[in-house]
């Protein structure tokens, strides 16, 4: 019953997008997000749409897998659209009781929906094409310059790596404990919400106890191997920029530069 939950939705492949240096991908996604909020005409979103479709095509990820990322957000998008439609003052195009839908409201709602959709697809393309480990390495490297102002870059990345590493372990454990308690007659599937919450105690207590035990053991194991933080630590697979990385970065900077600049050029 827990098998259909996927976290860290990496979709393995060997396309250019997959092979790209994670730091470049983080940079590109950042540029993409900034552009989304600079564009203020519908026609202005066309280049962004073309960009997204190109990335999907090149990466070889089924479009359905990308769209699936939108599903949990449908509700939020719907609410945003609804409130923007009725709350924006302006020229009324439709009236229903005390609700006024304005021309400006429709426009605003359209923008919001587009922005949210682009935001989600753009970022899910990043996580779909980048393995969690590469992603944390990239984040650590990008955050590194901020260490001087006290951002614990290495520690954050290590925490993310460990958390990701333990997701499947904890899922397995949950299933095992669930079965063990079901063998003792526990019932996790019926009753009202209060009863169900109460029935979770025999599952959650051992799960937490075991998680703490594991954390303790992991800490000891790391210490036994002389782990002492990121200072002077080298990598098995160091991140190195290659020619494609430079080319893609250059192209994207120019492309998004234009997308952002058009707001001011054609204003």
């Amino acid at each position, binding site marked *: 019953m827990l098998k259909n939950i996927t976290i860290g939705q990496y979709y393995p492949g060997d396309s250019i997008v997959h092979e790209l240096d994670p730091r470049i991908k983080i940079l590109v996604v950042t540029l993409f997000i900034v552009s989304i909020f600079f564009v203020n005409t519908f026609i202005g979103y066309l280049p962004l749409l073309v960009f997204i479709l190109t990335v999907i095509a090149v990466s070889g990820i089924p479009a359905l897998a990308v769209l699936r990322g939108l599903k949990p957000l449908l509700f939020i998008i719907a609410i945003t659209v609804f409130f923007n439609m009725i709350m924006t003052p302006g020229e009324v195009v439709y009236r229903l009781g005390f609700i006024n839908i304005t021309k400006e409201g429709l426009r605003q709602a359209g923008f919001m929906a587009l922005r949210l959709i682009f935001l989600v697809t753009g970022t899910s393309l990043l996580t779909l094409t980048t393995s969690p480990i590469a992603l944390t390495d990239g984040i650590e490297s990008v955050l590194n310059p901020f260490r001087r102002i006290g951002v614990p870059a290495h520690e954050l990345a290590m925490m993310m790596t460990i958390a990701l590493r333990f997701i499947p372990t904890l899922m397995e454990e949950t299933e095992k404990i669930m079965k063990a308690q079901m*063998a*003792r*007659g*526990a019932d996790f599937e019926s009753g009202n919400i209060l009863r169900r919450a109460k029935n979770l105690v*025999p599952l959650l207590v051992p799960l937490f*106890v075991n998680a703490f035990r594991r954390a303790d053991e992991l800490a000891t194991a790391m210490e036994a191997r002389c782990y002492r933080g990121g200072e002077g630590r080298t990598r098995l697979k160091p991140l190195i920029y290659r020619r494609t990385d430079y080319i893609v970065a250059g192209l994207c900077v120019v492309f998004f530069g234009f997308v952002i600049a058009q707001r001011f050029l054609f204003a």
Partner: protein
Amino acid sequence: MIEIKNLNYIYHPGSPYEKYALRDINLQIRKGEFIGLIGHTGSGKSTFVQHLNGLMKPTLGTVNVSGISTTDADAAKRGLRQKVGLVFQYPEHQLFEETVAKDIAFGPQNLGLSEEETEVRVREAMDMVGLSFEKLHDRSPFELSGGQKRRVAIAGVLAMKPEVLILDEPTAGLDPRGRDEILDEISALYESQGITIILVSHSMEDIARLATRILVLDKGQVVMDGDAREIYREEEALNAIGLDIPDITKAMKQVAEKTGWDIPPNVLTVQEAVDVYLRERKNHA
């Protein structure tokens, strides 16, 4: 008692991760048998035992426990989980209550038994696994030793008074003494309670000593089914699937080779080995 017909189980059918875990298993488990289930890691032992109390449902075929089919929607309600008690590997990882007594009472209370009846069951179950109710019932299960925790967890299943008790590697991770104690308690349970026991184990010695019938699983299939003497005669066949005969059986085979004495190829226990050896030595004196 338990009737298994044409049991097949496939993990993730239809996906690229599809894996045949159990294949065409047909067998009957009769009341009062002590079954030793052995097989290499990944041979399907744990998958198999989970089918016996309905935690897993067959992809194909049927499992029938005294008239209840495990695929019935109301199998759990009709007492399937009570009839077939399953002690998982490392069962101490499932303890959750504040006190030992409350933890053991979890099963009986899920069965809807009264407070008084539950307490009687808890006392009995603790007694069966050699734990003192007076000394331990008020302690937190988390502050006990490893062996004691495991006993509490086993007692938690025994308190449901199952007709069939399945133990999935009950001695894994225990020291030799803890292992012997648990096995002795299981053996005593079998003698005194008249229940059917299925013991999953890697240890050929333990199985040889206790089981009345041995099932050998390999790649999800039952490849051997018989008593210890029959099974342990097949050294080559066992070796071929990554298993081995007990050390004492092996040692006595070597003695037979060296001396040419008339020693059976399936000596099971040290005591038996000593007897055979002394007898043969006298014969050749």
